[in-house]
C-alpha cells in the first residue's frame, strides 16, 4: 500500500519490520510446520449420531430461548399464534425459503403491518414489534442460530426489534460449530456475507451487580419455531 505524508499511521513496511525483528527474521516467511490440527476427539461436542433436534431444542432452551417443535403444516399457524400472544403487529418479515415453504406470508393474512427494508440501513426496524427470520444454520451443541446478511436477509431482522422469531428446519441443524466451518472451507473472504451472527440466547447483561437482565440492546425475547419435517 503506498504511503503518503497526509495519511496518518505507519507505512506497512516499517510496521512489519518490527514484527520481523521480534521474530528474528528479515522478511515474511511461510511457516515450515503445519498449523495445529484441530483434533475432533478433543473439541467435537456433538455429532450426527446425536438426536440433533432434541439436543438443539434443549440447548436453546438452556440459554433462554423459547422452542416450539411443529410440523411444516402447522408451522405458519404456530408463528401467528406466537405473534398474537406477544402482541406483535408491526413486523420485519424476512423468513426466506423456510417462510416460503410453510406459506407464512399468506397464512398471516390481514392485521399486521409489514415493514420493508429501505436499503439504507437499520432505520426502518426501530419502530417494530418483531423480526421474523430463517437461519443459515443452527448448532445443536450450543443451541445457536446462525444468521448471515444477504439480499433478502437484513442484519436488522434478528437485531433491532425487541422480539426475534426464528424459523429453524430440521435440515438447518448442524451438530457442532466444527461442521459450520467445514461448510465454509475454501470460500474466500470476499465471497462470504459481510455479517455472520451466531446468536445464542436473547440479549443479556449482568453488568449491574451481576443481576441477569435480558433485552438490553438486542431482542429480549427469542422464539424458535422448529420445523421437524423440513
Amino acid at each position, binding site marked *: 500500500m503506498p504511503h503518503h505524508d497526509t495519511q496518518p499511521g505507519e507505512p506497512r513496511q516499517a510496521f512489519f519490520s518490527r514484527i*520481523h525483528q521480534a521474530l528474528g527474521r528479515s522478511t515474511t516467511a511461510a511457516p515450515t510446520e503445519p498449523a495445529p490440527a484441530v483434533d475432533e476427539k478433543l*473439541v467435537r461436542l456433538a455429532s450426527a449420531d446425536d438426536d440433533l433436534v432434541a439436543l438443539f431444542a434443549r440447548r436453546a432452551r438452556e440459554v433462554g430461548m423459547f422452542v416450539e417443535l411443529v410440523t411444516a403444516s402447522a408451522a405458519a399457524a404456530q408463528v401467528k399464534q406466537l405473534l398474537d400472544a406477544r402482541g406483535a403487529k408491526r413486523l420485519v418479515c424476512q423468513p426466506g425459503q423456510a417462510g416460503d415453504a410453510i406459506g407464512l406470508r399468506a397464512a398471516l393474512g390481514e392485521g399486521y403491518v409489514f415493514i420493508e427494508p429501505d436499503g439504507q440501513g437499520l432505520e426502518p426496524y426501530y419502530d417494530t414489534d418483531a423480526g421474523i427470520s430463517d437461519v443459515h444454520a443452527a448448532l445443536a451443541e450450543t443451541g445457536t442460530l446462525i444468521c448471515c446478511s444477504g439480499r433478502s436477509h437484513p442484519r436488522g431482522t434478528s437485531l433491532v426489534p425487541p422480539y426475534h422469531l426464528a424459523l429453524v428446519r430440521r435440515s438447518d441443524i448442524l451438530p457442532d460449530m466444527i461442521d459450520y466451518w467445514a461448510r465454509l472451507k475454501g470460500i474466500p473472504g470476499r465471497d462470504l456475507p459481510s455479517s455472520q451472527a451466531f446468536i445464542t440466547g436473547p440479549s443479556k447483561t449482568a453488568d449491574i451487580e451481576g443481576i441477569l437482565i435480558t433485552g438490553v440492546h438486542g431482542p429480549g425475547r427469542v422464539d424458535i419455531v422448529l420445523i421437524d419435517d423440513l
Partner: protein
Amino acid sequence: MTPTPSAESLLFPNLPYTVAKRSDVATRDVQLQQFVNHATLTKDIARKQLMPQVFGEHVDAVRTLAGDIKQHALDHLDYYLEQFISNAEAAGAKVHFAATDAQAREITIAIAKENQCKLCVKSKSMVTEEVHLLPALEAIGCETIETDLGEFILQLDHDAPSHIVTPMIHKDRTAVARAFVRELGAAYTEDAEALTRIAREHLRQKYREADLGICGGNFLVAETGSVVICTNEGNGRLCTSAPRVLVAMVGIEKIVPRLEHLGVLLKVLARSATAQPLTVYTHTMTGPRRAAEPDGPEQMHIILVDNGRTEALREETREMLRCIRCGACLNACPVYRKIGGHSYGAVYSGPIGAILTPVLKGLENYPDLPHASSLCGACYEACPVKINIPKFLVQLRAELVSRKLDKPADRLFMKLWARSLTTTATFRFGGWSQKWGFRLLAAFNASLEDGSDYAARGWLRSAPGPVAGWTQARDMPTPPARSFRHWWREHEKQGRTQSPNQPPH
C-alpha cells in the same frame, strides 16, 4: 473508593507507578471487597464446574490445543497478518497500521474527519481503552458513546473499568442510579431492570443518529480477513451494523490462521469467561456491506495496533500474547480479589496485567507489579490458552534484580542473607544477631501496654522497621531460647539412645 482519583489517572497514572498506594486503600474498602469477591468467586466456581462437564477428561488437552493455536499464529505473525490483510482488502475493508497509541488515535480521527462524523457509538474494546481513543474523538467534536452497559455507566460516572470482561464489578446499583439521575435526568430507581431499560432507550436513539461505529476485535481470521467480536448485549452488533462508517481497532496478536482454529478458541472463550457456551452474539464481519445487502456499514476500516506488542513478541515473552481476554485469571486470583482492578494502575489488570503491563509499558514504570501475586498458580490453571503466568512473574522479578530496579533495601537484605548462608561462621553469626535482635524487640514489646502479655508468651505484637509489614497483620513468634544447633550438641553428647527431651520446634 476513597480517595477517588480521576478516571483518567486510574488507568493512566503518573509513572513510575506503585501498586501499594492504591492496594492499601482497596484492602480497607469493605464494600469493594464484597463486590469483587462475590463477582469473581461466582464466575470462578462456574468455570471450574463447566469445563470438565463439557470437555470431560480432555480439559487439559483442549487448553493445550488452544494455546498451541495461538502460539503458532504468534510464531508466524508476519505470515498470517499479511494473509489477513490481503483477504480483508479483497473483501473491501481498508487496513491501517498504528505503531503507537498516538498513531491509532490519528488514524481514527482522520477517518472521522474525512467522513464528517459527528456521533460515534462504540462497543467494548480493551485496545481502544489502551490507546486512549475516546477523549481524542471528543476533542475533535465527535461525541463518542460507550454502549456496553457497564462501560456506558462508567463513562457517565467518570469512572474506569476494573475488570477485562465485567468492567464495573467495583460499583453497585446505587452508584448507577445516581449517575442516571445526574447525567440523564432519569427518575431515581435502584431496580436493575428499570436501570437497564433507561440505558436501552437512551442508547437506541444514539444508534439511530450515529455515523461512526467503533469496535475492537476478539479474533482476526487470516484465511478470510474476518474480524470477530463476542458480546452479550447486542451493542456490538448494533455498533458494527447501524453507522455508515465502521472502524475495528485490533491488536496484532488477535490473529488466528483459519476458521477451524477460531472455532476452538470460541469453544473455550465464553466458557472460561462467564461459563456460557458461547457469548450471546458472536459476530464475524468480513468487509463492509455487499452491494446486494440491505443494511450494514458502507466502509470498514481495520486499524492494526502494535503499541508495544512487538516488544512482547520477542521469544522470551511471546507466550503472553496468547491471551484471549477471557478474564478467568482475574476471577481465579486471590490477590485481584483483595486489591481490585484499579490497583494495577493500567488497562489490563489481574495476573495477566501484572505480566503484560510491565512488558508493554516498561518494567521501570511498574516495578512492583510482578510482586502483586502470591505465585499460587491459580491463574495458570484457569488460563484457557495455558499462559504460564507464574513463570513470567518470576522472570520479571529476576529482571527487576538484574536491571537493579528493585528496592535498595531489599537488595541489601537479600545480599546479607545470601552471605550469611555461605559459611558456618556467618550463619551462626546471623542466627546470633537474629536472636538478640528479637530479644530487643521482645523487650520493646514488653514495654508496650498491649504487648507485654504477648511477649511473655513468646510473641511479638508489633515491630518497627522492616518487620513492621509482618506484624501489621499478624503476630510474630520470637525464636526459642535454645537453638536447634544447641539441642543437637547436647543430643550428641548424651548419645542417640537417650534423647534429653524433644527438639525445639
